[in-house]
């Protein structure tokens, strides 16, 4: 079945993963800018990373017939250093006209600190000024509920932000409802140990419906599975969901949201 991988950190993955995703039916992979696993020492590190996301990675994906898109930002794990964040935010507009850029992301919170929130609001402002889509990372584990609330409050306070142009990622059972109630899109991340399992993600779909929800693997350098989306499609089929419903969740929903960017074309 054809599907879209709306959140994958392919710079951390081997080329074999592109091949396996293509064989599984992946049509496009979307890569938010994220933490490299270590703090970059200067803004030049981000310049190189944004060049990798907009120049090199699309070529690597294209070798397997996959379209590659990306999101740009400074992530929340490096947002405690506000001066560095300001420098990176000043750099982003130079890359926004690249043909595979979808918007600003994954911005958000990690430990819910004042500086993280300040940098998040600066990047929401950047998105608003440049009329960009927004992809939001919500915190891990015990910090998720509080962080999701803080993020939603900040987005609602900026009247320029249209909820339907924001995807709040990594929702789980205790945060999905508040995101959908705010009129925004919600992403479920499928991880082997944290976030959602395929079974729990399908539970959430059965509980909250399949509007404004998508699935992603968020595969990166940690414990993760680049085939998590097609495996969850299989889980839906095991429960007897119609093929059209599966296709809506793994293909049509991400396509609908992402097509709000003029750069997204399958």
């Amino acid at each position: 079945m054809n599907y879209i991988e709306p959140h994958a950190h392919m710079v951390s993955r081997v080329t074999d993963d592109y091949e396996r995703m293509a064989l599984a039916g992946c049509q496009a992979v979307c890569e938010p800018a994220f933490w490299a696993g270590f703090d970059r020492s200067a803004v030049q590190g981000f310049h190189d990373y944004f060049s990798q996301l907009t120049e090199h990675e699309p070529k690597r994906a294209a070798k397997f017939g996959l379209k590659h898109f990306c999101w740009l930002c400074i992530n929340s794990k490096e947002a405690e250093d506000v001066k560095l964040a300001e420098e990176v935010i000043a750099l982003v507009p130079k890359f926004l006209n690249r043909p595979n850029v979808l918007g600003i992301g994954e911005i958000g919170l990690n430990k819910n600190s004042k500086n993280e929130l300040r940098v998040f609001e600066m990047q929401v402002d950047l998105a608003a000024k440049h009329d960009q889509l927004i992809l939001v990372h919500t915190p891990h584990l015990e910090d998720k509920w509080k962080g999701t609330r803080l993020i939603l409050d900040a987005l609602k306070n900026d009247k320029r932000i249209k909820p339907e142009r924001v995807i709040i990622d990594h929702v789980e059972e205790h945060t999905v409802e508040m995101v959908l109630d705010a009129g925004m899109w919600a992403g479920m991340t499928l991880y082997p140990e944290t976030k959602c399992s395929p079974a729990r993600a399908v539970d959430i779909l059965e509980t909250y419906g399949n509007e404004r929800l998508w699935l992603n693997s968020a595969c990166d350098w940690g414990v993760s599975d680049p085939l998590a989306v097609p495996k969850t499609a299989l889980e839906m089929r095991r429960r007897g969901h119609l093929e059209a419903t599966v296709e809506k969740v793994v293909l049509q929903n991400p396509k609908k949201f992402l097509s709000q960017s003029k750069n997204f074309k399958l």
Partner: protein
Amino acid sequence: MTRQQVLDLYFLDARHKLIELAAFLDRLERAEGDGDFRAEAFRAALGELTGNKKGRAKNVQLAFSDPTTAPIDKAPGKGAVGAYPK
């Protein structure tokens, strides 16, 4: 799905996970030393599994969550441990 279908599809997997939980608690009890707040948080979250209250998964998530609402002054690091000291 019918209740019977849910049992047919998921019972063995859930049984396996329940025994893993029981073994973890036994292992924790056998071990020496004091441990930390996560043990208490785990036992509190376990309480959400029993009884007829709906939304068990959501309630377990909330049992582990930071219930405060104001941003903290400074991030203490980057990682999360899975439970909030209450």
